[in-house]
């Protein structure tokens, strides 16, 4: 049984609870719900987490911004081509301190999703993000990025305007930004489209978020020529927060309420706020050189391979 079916069962139980007026029965169903939550809802497969990360009710970037930050002023456009609604950016107060926010925005309804292109950015989105990061550097405020995208948009216009170059330029420039960058993957972290705003000093993931080189569907169709094997792909790809923490690719996991972030959004926002505060505080007394070097060194080290020290070999002509 996958997580969506489990969730339906839970909702059904909760509906039963409302209709009842018998004290004893209420007690029994309440304990049943608690048992259910602690058993079934907690033991999640990678595919369950994929579905939670893409859940229609999952808090979006705008929800997080509204709940965690104050006085958000959205800043539009890349000063060159246009304004990409898949990436929103701006300035806000975080616990009284000005910060720059860059976030990928998914919609909760079909109309919202069409408006924000299902959070799949075009080059101008990445260029807007870079413009705002440079601005943050100038005014010495921390940068917070919220990652939630299936990937960069594959389209004719996107290619013609240099999707590859736009992403590459962000990776290039972000490696040397002199203010701290904190990234949180709140839903889907899809390929280069996510990484392009994710070259951060610290990358945190919500517990049920995913971060991968490609969608499980794409992965299955490339490796096994069958998009329907996405479920298997999800298990193989090691895309959950726990896998990535184990690999040392991310710095931390932000716990979600049982059943996923949307079951108790307030609790999720509190957890995000708390983690952000801790992270930002840890950079208070660090020089700009230290901050950018730490970020560069972190990414420089990532890789899974062996190198054989051929200097010690006999018979090798160097």
């Amino acid at each position: 049984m996958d997580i969506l079916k489990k969730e339906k069962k839970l909702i059904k139980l909760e509906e039963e609870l409302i209709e009842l007026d018998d004290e004893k029965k209420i007690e029994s169903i309440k304990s049943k719900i608690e048992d259910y939550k602690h058993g079934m809802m907690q033991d999640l497969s990678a595919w369950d987490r994929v579905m939670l990360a893409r859940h229609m009710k999952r808090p979006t970037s705008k929800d997080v911004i509204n709940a965690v930050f104050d006085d958000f002023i959205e800043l539009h456009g890349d000063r060159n081509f246009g304004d990409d609604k898949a990436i929103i950016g701006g300035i806000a107060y975080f616990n009284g301190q000005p910060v720059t926010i860059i976030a990928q925005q998914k919609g909760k309804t079909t109309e919202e999703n069409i408006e924000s292109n299902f959070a799949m950015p075009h080059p101008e989105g990445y260029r807007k993000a870079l413009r705002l990061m440079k601005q943050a550097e100038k005014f010495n405020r921390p940068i917070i990025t919220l990652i939630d995208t299936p990937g960069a948009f594959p389209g004719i216009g996107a290619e013609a305007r240099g999707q590859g170059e736009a992403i590459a330029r962000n990776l290039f420039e972000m490696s040397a930004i002199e203010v701290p960058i904190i990234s949180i993957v709140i839903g889907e972290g899809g390929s280069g489209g996510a990484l392009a705003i994710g070259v951060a000093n610290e990358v945190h993931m919500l517990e049920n978020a995913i971060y991968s080189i490609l969608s499980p569907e794409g992965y299955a169709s490339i490796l096994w020529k069958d998009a329907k094997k996405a479920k298997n792909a999800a298990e193989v790809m090691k895309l959950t927060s726990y896998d990535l923490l184990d690999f040392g690719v991310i710095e931390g996991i932000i716990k979600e309420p049982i059943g996923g972030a949307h079951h108790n959004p307030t609790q999720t926002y509190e957890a995000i706020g708390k983690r952000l505060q801790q992270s930002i505080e840890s950079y208070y007394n660090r020089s700009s050189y230290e901050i950018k070097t730490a970020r560069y060194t972190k990414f420089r080290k990532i890789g899974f391979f062996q190198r054989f020290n051929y200097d010690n070999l006999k018979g090798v002509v160097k």
Partner: protein
Amino acid sequence: MKRDVLKNAFDKQRQFKSKTVSYRKKPLQSAKQPDVPKGLYEKCQSCGKTFIAKDMIKNMFVCPSCDNHFRLRAIDRLNITVDPHSFLEKGLGYITLDPLFIDGYEQKVADYKKQTNLDEAYIYGYAQIESIPCVIGIMDSHFMMGSMGSVVGEKVTKSIEYAMVKRLPLIMFVASGGARMQEGIFSLMQMAKTSGALKKLDEQGLLFVSVLTHPTTGGVTASFASLGDIILAEPNALIGFAGPRVIKQTIKQDLPEGFQRAEFLKDKGMVDKVVHRHALKDTLHTILKMHQGGSE
């Protein structure tokens, strides 16, 4: 599990030991033969005509009839680009591992190693072009479509660092299908690693020329390939971030003629110059000559 990984790596080291010796016994310069795939004739994929392989080598693997640029092996690229006997290969001894335990991945890598006589899809080292020293890096699309996994990412980064240590200009020939899916998130992170290293190269005022050849797509386009001070491309090379098939599926309409080809990219301002393979060495030489004073 971790212990297994270590043990595997150790076994591989031992296998590698014997392999390294035999690999080195065949010096790179004399390995001209493997470019003639079985028999003495080469067929052009574009016009279907057949040519004598010897003539093809002389013509730098450009079709004499339709001007189609064949995909080059790293060794052939080296032979037509750098001065004879000037190449000194660096960064040997990297061993590709299987971080996600994908069925058949190790075997695939082993097969490609055998087929191509390479350790991985990228080689780099010191070389001279018309006596001007430089660092040269070449991707080989015959090795698993030139995809970038941990080893390719590391070697690309090392080649950038080598250029910084030697204070030499860096020339990179790119040919890649993108990130290597089998290494998952590690492949993705190589994009950040290589781009970050190029930022350091940039800050030191060194020249980076990126030459895009057929095909250059995916995570490689979205990292080091697009970050050259000067970006050259070979005629009709496919260059893009998303593959044409994926774009077609997404937007559900046919793609315009010449879309994502080198000339299209030049037209859109994404590539500095499209250069015929016959003129490439001269162009590179002129560029290197003009930058000899450095940026100081």
